[in-house]
Structures are given as structure tokens and as C-alpha cells.
């Protein structure tokens, strides 16, 4: 059986933490299969990232380099990775459940005549047939499915934070340059421009104050902001989050969204205001150290997972609370 391959991703010029987590996860599986772990770095200039990856004691680090692989153009990346998989025949291909991974894994799997499993939270080897057994939450997290699929390579995307990040190793990895045969005709989607927006990093907050469907008007987020300001004097960095319906209404940009398709966070405190607690939201904040819920509905889910609850109208509670905090 071929090596376990992992897709390297970068952040701020260095290795993305999720990539280090994949390396650790792959090492465990490789031990069970008595095989090695290799990694692939994709881009137009892969040398620096390949060097960083080579410090982790991998079998090989492939540099999949081509001018068309500049940035992330899915058509080019999928084409290049398809070519690489056919060249080096990995037994398993681990990919982060990241922006890149979500797009690459299904398309790549189709082209390699296999089926990917996305957003896995557990991986193990079936002792009987050496297949990769995947654990995946479904129904937003209301159930956990354990599945297998046919086909080689076995391709999965792995949720953030499932494995501890790997530590650098004593042995350096062999770096191998691979030149994929790509041409312009591969690119069927043309990038016109990228508009950078200010993005809040909710995972860096000490406290997140989040509003949901129960917030009556867009303007009411101002009182949440005032609350955040009052709290930030004593509680470190306080940021505003929200549940999906708020983004659907266009009241907040999606970087504020907490949950399955937004941020998954674990702040010191999470204050849920007017959020009933659909499970897709809960999976994004359930690891908060303290959860405080304000809601008019005593029966809502959020109170079932909260440490503290206030049954009442945020329009009355919050202004009074801000006053008390400032006393």
C-alpha cells in the first residue's frame, strides 16, 4: 500500500496549524498500516513551505509547482493533484476540512474514481481489510455516523482541532520536485478580482457576544456592541458573533457566524442572546468554558447547554446590565 499523503496548506507564509494536525493524525494511521507519511505542497513557489514541512520527519515532501498554481484556482489544483495521485499512488489522502479542502476533496475523489468523506472527527484503520474507517457527525451533530467507502486513495477531509499539532522531528524529509503538466485550457473559471474585507477572528476572542433570530432589528446589534464595549474593559477581547439567520438577513457578514459552517470557537465565555440553539449552532460554541443565555423562551435548547440562563427580553436586560457593569 502506498504512503499516506497529506495536503499542506499555508497561513501567513508558514504552515497552517490544521496541516500540523493532519501530520499527527497521519502518523497514527501510518503506524497501524506500517507505511510512511508524505506531504504535498502546491503552488507557484513551493520552496519555502516545502522546507517548513520537511522539518516534520515525513517520508517525502512533494513540491507540486507550476505558474498556474499561483493562489488557489480550484481547476488547476484539482488537475495537479489528480496527476500527482496517479504518479505516486497514495493509499490514503488526508486533507483539512478547510476552504481549500472542501472544494478539492470531492472533485479529486470523483476523478480518481473514489468517494471522499468530508468533515471527519475520527479516523481509524479496519483491522480486517485495512480500510479507513471515518467518523463523521451528521444532522448538524445530532448523530455520529461511522462510514467506509470503496476506492483508492481513501480521501477524507478532517475537522480542525481533532488531532494535536505535530512537533518537528530530528530527521529531515526528502524534498521531491514534481512538475505537473498543466495548461491554460484547464482553467474554466476565471478570477476577475479578490476583494479583501476586514475579517473578525472570533477564535481569538476571550468573550463572544452573539445574537440570533430573536434579535428583532438590525439596529439592536448596537446594544450588543455597547455591551461588548462595557465588558471589554474588564474581560479582555470581546467580539460580536451571530447565528446563521442573522447572516441570511444580511445584518452581519459571515465572518461573525458561529457554527458548523462558520467559526468553531471555545472562548472563556459565550453569551447567546436570542439564539434558540439549533444544533448546527451549538457545535460551534459548545466548547466555550462558560455559556450564558438570554432568551424569552424557557424551553429553548440554548438553556439546556448553558451554565447560566436569564429568561427575559434582551431589550430590557442588556441596558440594565451595561449600567451595572459600569458601576
Amino acid at each position, binding site marked *: 500500500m502506498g504512503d499516506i499523503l497529506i495536503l499542506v496548506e499555508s497561513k501567513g507564509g508558514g504552515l497552517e496549524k490544521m496541516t500540523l494536525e493532519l501530520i499527527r493524525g497521519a502518523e497514527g494511521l501510518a503506524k497501524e498500516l506500517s507505511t510512511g507519511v508524505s506531504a504535498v505542497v502546491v503552488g507557484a513557489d513551493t520552496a519555502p513551505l516545502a522546507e517548513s514541512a520537511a522539518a516534520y520527519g515525513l517520508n517525502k515532501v512533494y513540491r507540486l509547482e507550476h505558474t498556474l498554481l499561483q493562489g488557489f484556482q480550484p*481547476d488547476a489544483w484539482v488537475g495537479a493533484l489528480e496527476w500527482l495521485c496517479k504518479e505516486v499512488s497514495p493509499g490514503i489522502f488526508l486533507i483539512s476540512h478547510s476552504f481549500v479542502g*472542501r472544494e478539492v476533496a*470531492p*472533485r479529486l*475523489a*470523483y*476523478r480518481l474514481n473514489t*468517494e*471522499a468523506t468530508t*468533515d471527519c472527527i475520527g479516523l481509524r484503520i479496519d483491522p480486517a481489510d485495512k480500510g479507513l*474507517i471515518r467518523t463523521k*457527525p*451528521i*444532522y*448538524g451533530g*445530532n*448523530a*455520529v*455516523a*461511522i*462510514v*467506509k467507502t470503496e476506492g483508492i486513495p481513501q480521501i477524507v477531509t478532517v475537522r480542525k482541532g481533532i488531532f494535536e499539532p505535530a512537533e518537528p522531528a530530528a530527521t529531515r524529509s526528502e524534498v521531491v520536485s514534481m512538475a505537473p503538466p498543466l495548461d491554460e485550457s484547464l482553467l*474554466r*473559471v476565471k*478570477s*476577475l*478580482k*479578490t*476583494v*479583501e474585507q476586514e*475579517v473578525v477572528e472570533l477564535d481569538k476572542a476571550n468573550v463572544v457576544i452573539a445574537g440570533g433570530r430573536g434579535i428583532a432589528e438590525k439596529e439592536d446589534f448596537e446594544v450588543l456592541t455597547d455591551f461588548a464595549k462595557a*465588558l471589554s474593559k474588564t*474581560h479582555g477581547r470581546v467580539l460580536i458573533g451571530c447565528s446563521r439567520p442573522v*447572516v*441570511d*438577513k*444580511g445584518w452581519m*457578514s*459571515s465572518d461573525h457566524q458561529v457554527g458548523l*459552517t462558520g467559526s468553531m470557537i471555545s472562548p*472563556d465565555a459565550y453569551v447567546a442572546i436570542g439564539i*434558540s*440553539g*439549533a444544533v*448546527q449552532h451549538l457545535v460551534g460554541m459548545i466548547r466555550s468554558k*462558560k455559556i*450564558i443565555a438570554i432568551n424569552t423562551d424557557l424551553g429553548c*435548547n440554548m*438553556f*439546556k*447547554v448553558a451554565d*447560566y440562563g436569564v*429568561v427575559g427580553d434582551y431589550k*430590557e*436586560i*442588556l441596558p*440594565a*446590565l451595561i449600567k*451595572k*457593569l459600569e458601576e
Partner: protein
Amino acid sequence: MKEPKIIVCAKQIPDPEAPFSNVSVNVEKKEVVVDAPDVISPYDENALEAAIRIKEEVGGKITVLSMGRKVSDTVLRKTVAAGADALILLEDAAFERLDSRSIAFVLSSAIKKIGEYDLILTGRQAGDWDSGQVGLILAELLGIPSISLARSIKIKDDSVVVEKLVPVGYEVVEAELPALVTVSNEVGELRYVARTKMMALLRRPISIPKWGTKQLELSVEALNPVQLMELCPPPDMRRECVFIEGASSDEKAGKLAAVFKELR
């Protein structure tokens, strides 16, 4: 250009926002039991909304495709009430719990049977398995360009221009038609459909074709179910909630402030 023919793939699922106390797992039957009415998967509703906005701007025809073991036209008729022109149900006992490739294969067969199309829209992922694969695989099967995670979609001449979510903001991309776009919730909620309009539509007989393996000329052997080894209940998320009581909001706020002071 001519008015675009748009296909929206919409999946019927148990309400993903049902309180978790209404959801249980039957371990033996490997089934999730949801005590709530079925709905259209939320991201697919966003996809339909995007389609309707295109139609409002440049005209066109919207066909909704929905696939499953048993699909309810009562649930799906909402799409017509909101602005879709036609609804086709892909229904067959063999369509139960298929893997993503097989679902995409059935959809591609139906789309080929429909014939002409310019744009296919799907939700970014379904609200039950959250795999986010079918749309992208469908584009591969049909050999057309795919764009994922759209927050806005416009038709311009013979191409589609999409604002696509990226980690730093959004990217504006363009592809020639026909193309497939997966839609995220930033597009906006599906417009409100008045109950009276829904009821009127339910009474009015409209032709809703139902296609199964026979009509699509598919062999059941070509379809692979998900290899589900086990289905488990989720880890318990419950905590013991201390309710902050008080005769007035002011009193509650005072006690809550004390809780925050303790957290420091």
C-alpha cells in the same frame, strides 16, 4: 442573450433546526429519527432565491429537481409558490441513502433527460449529512465549470459572474455557461411565501413529473448506498443551567453582572 434555463437542486430533509430533544438515534436500524416536519434544505432554499433573483433581472425559466426515496410535493410546492416554473421529483426506493457520487449520477441523468440548461444551482451542502459534495461532483459528471460558495450570482451575456466567499473576503469569478454554482446563505433567505398563496397552489392541480430509475433508464446496480457501519447518538452537550431569577429586569441584570464579575 436568450433567457437562461436554470435548474435548482433542492433536497427534502427533516427540519435541521428541530430542537435536539426532538431528534433521536435508532442505533439498531441505523436511523436518525426526527420528530419534526420535513423542509427544503436551507442552503437549497438560498439557491432557489438566487435563481429567482436572476429570473427577475434577466428572465428565464427555473426548474426545481428534488430527489429521494420519497419526496413530498407538499414540501416542494413551496418552490413553485416562491417563483420556480417547474418541479420534477426524482423518486425511487433505490434512491435511499446513496453516496454522493451516486446522487450526483442520478441528478446528471435527470438533467440530461431535461436536455437544455444554462445554469445549475445547488446549496453549498445539505442540512442532513453536510457533505458538500454532490454539486461539485455533478459538475464533474456533466463536464461543466463549477464555482462554490456563492454569495451573489449574475448572468452576463453567455457567462455567469459570481461573488464567491474566500477566507479574506470575496473573489469575483466568471465562467462560461453552462456552469454549476453552489450557493451559501450569504445570498439571502428564500423570499416569504404567503400562506394563502401556498394553499391556493396546493389546491391547483399542477403537473409534477415523477422520475425513477425506470424513467431515467438507470440500473440499480450502478447506485451505491453509503456504507454506514454504525450510527451513534452524539456526545451529551447538556449542562446544568443556573437560572438567574428576579422580580424585575433590573434585578436580573444585577445578578448577571455579578456572574460576569466572577468570570474575570
